[in-house]
């Protein structure tokens, strides 16, 4: 393959993506209504109890009544949302550092999710996760809250 052609292709790709980013700035897309609607669209049988929204609107945790022992996670990816339902076997560990809760999993395209929470919601989120992860099933590394 011609290296000049490859370089031109890479430059064109970068310029086109830059143009797209400039003309379509990413707006706020994660809020209570969008999280609920999007999560239910992908999981119509699920029954949502509570939604814990991150302070920076980049992620949300969903307490579910159905399915039991599962946690809903909705994250922002660009201008779209990504929905996950995880059980105790999916969560490798979780950690709290300052106002940020990080959930690590073996999901190859989303190995961790970070969510910023105020102190009250941090406690609710931790209670929610520990309610269905066995004590030995989660590594509470770096917990400080």
């Amino acid at each position, binding site marked *: 393959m011609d290296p000049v052609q*490859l370089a031109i292709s890479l430059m064109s790709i970068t310029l086109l993506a830059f143009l797209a980013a400039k003309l379509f700035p990413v707006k706020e897309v994660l809020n209570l209504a969008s999280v609920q609607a999007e999560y239910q669209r992908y999981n119509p049988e699920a029954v949502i109890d509570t939604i814990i929204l991150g302070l920076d609107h980049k992620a949300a945790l969903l307490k579910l009544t159905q399915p039991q022992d599962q946690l809903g996670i909705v994250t922002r990816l660009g201008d779209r949302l990504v929905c996950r339902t995880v059980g105790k076997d999916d969560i490798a560990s979780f950690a709290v550092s300052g106002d940020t809760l990080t959930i690590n999993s073996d999901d190859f395209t989303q190995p961790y999710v970070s969510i910023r929470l105020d102190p009250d919601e941090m406690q609710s989120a931790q209670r929610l996760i520990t309610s269905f992860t066995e004590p030995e099933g989660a590594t509470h590394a770096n917990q400080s809250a």
Partner: protein
Amino acid sequence: MQINLLDLGNPTELAVALFVGLIILEILYGWKTGRVTYEGKDAFASMFMGFGSKIAGVISALLYGWLALWVWTNFRLFDFGTDLWVFALAFVLADFAYYWIHRLGHRVRWMWAAHVIHHSSQHYNLSTALRQTWTNFLTPNFLFFIPIYFLGIHPAIVIFCYGLNLIYQFWIHTEAIKKCPKWFEYIFNTPSHHRVHHANNPRYLDANYAGVFMAWDRMFGSFVPERDDDPCNYGLVNDLGTFNPLRIAFHEWIGIAKDIWGAKSWRDRLLYLIAPPGWTPDGSRMTSDMIKAAWRARNEAKKTTAQ
């Protein structure tokens, strides 16, 4: 009219400039009208996947090009030559082969591991057309063209026509065109038909596999028309959480490897490879058939409640 096979280039290389021009036009059109959406990182990931796919295509050509020539040289039933009508026949046959590669690409996890890349964006615009796999050489796709070489059409003609087929499929990745004229929608693959193919609405799963001609979908029962009351949502039933091209390129292969590693029997190992995506021995994940069945059951329940 005879055509010199040595004069046949790869048409996709000539088309790159056209692709760039049309993407600029679509971005500007979307910016002006709001009828098309782009997102910078998503568009970069899609186009970078296309760039990687071109490079990885060299591996496929090296691996399977010789096989194609070997079959045509030693086992062809006829020698069709290089008349224009042979190109027309090759175009139709390559489109038929594409239909089955594509259909099985959605129904066999081994083939899906490569094809899933094309469906991994939640956007639907011309950059999505370029979001292509890097791992085609790991699939059995090349086998579907063997009968055409066996029949007696030269591999260079088939590869040329297949290239034209892929170029055709570029322009249909847009929301800018709602519907084409009725006769055109009937015969050819269009933005409307292909939007359905990229949608993850239960109604639209596993539909419209056509490359150019819709006849295959109509003949083999996989045609589903786009409906105004069920607007397309794009992406996978389990969307990717990344724009990282390496994670996009290999995620399903990693998933298969993990499942096979953890499988309890050889039967399960085989089925993790050849059963539809989402299959598990205990039914803990959902295949597209299960999603569609659940959707139908919900609709039935709603109707019963309404009566």
